[in-house]
């Protein structure tokens, strides 16, 4: 079992959101699991699927609307009201600021991160229901994506794992 001897052996992450702050936690947790010798896989579903779409995963942005914790110009600044967050370019601007911070912490851009996780032996899967709903084709995905799975197959592959929804 996954928690024998108090050590986690396997995690299955579900990445369901397509904003920057929706995608990174799943990537960081999967990569971090591999760094600890823990088996890791990510199941990308709904808008989280954008993390593995090669034409789009370079354009992932922070949600500046409907994010009451969002502050400017930094994490301890003034709250950013939704009406201001809706100004064109605001999301791009906030994303750029965040990316600068992330680069300093050596957190890679999404495509490089995806490649690192795959190279680290992590597994990347897409949700079949979403793939069908979004009319996606195999060529839409980055090379690192291994397989499109039904939810049943996802549970089968997650046997003995901790399942984490992000």
């Amino acid at each position, binding site marked *: 079992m996954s928690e024998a001897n108090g050590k986690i052996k396997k995690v299955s992450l579900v990445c369901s959101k397509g904003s920057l702050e929706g995608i990174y936690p799943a990537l*960081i947790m999967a*990569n*971090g699991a*591999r*760094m*600890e*010798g823990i088996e890791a896989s990510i199941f990308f579903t709904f808008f989280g699927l954008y993390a593995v779409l090669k034409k789009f995963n370079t354009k992932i942005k922070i949600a500046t609307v409907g994010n009451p914790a969002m502050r400017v110009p930094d994490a301890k600044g003034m709250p950013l009201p939704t009406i201001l967050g809706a100004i064109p370019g605001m999301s791009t601007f906030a994303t750029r600021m965040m990316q600068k911070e992330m680069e300093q*912490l*050596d*957190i*890679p851009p999404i495509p*490089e991160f995806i*490649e*690192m996780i795959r*190279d*680290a*032996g992590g597994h990347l899967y897409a949700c079949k229901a979403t793939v069908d709903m979004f009319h996606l084709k195999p060529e839409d995905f980055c090379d690192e994506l291994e397989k499109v799975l039904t939810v049943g197959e996802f549970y089968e592959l997650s046997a003995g794992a901790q399942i984490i929804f992000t």
Partner: protein
Amino acid sequence: MPSATIAGVTVDVNEEGFMTDRGQWTRAIGEAIAAELGMTPMTDSHWKVIDFLQKDYAEQGVMPSIRRVKNAGGIPTKELYALYPDGPLKKASRIAGLPKPSSCI
């Protein structure tokens, strides 16, 4: 401060077995820690990782991330995991006599 006898030498280590005094490290000690971790034999490729970690730590003062090992050290992530399975950076740092990696990446 706990100490351990590695390769016949008494060295300072922390509770997790990471050496705390860089000056005490020798290649023989590295080899002995590697053997303890089941990492035998240590090939040139294994030492290339250790050499980079030590050089980068000396220059930067912080432990490099796996990304830095790849981008600055020129050691592909796939290779790093093949050389040091099950927690590559942690294992390699311990063999190198360096602190436990502190980055999440």
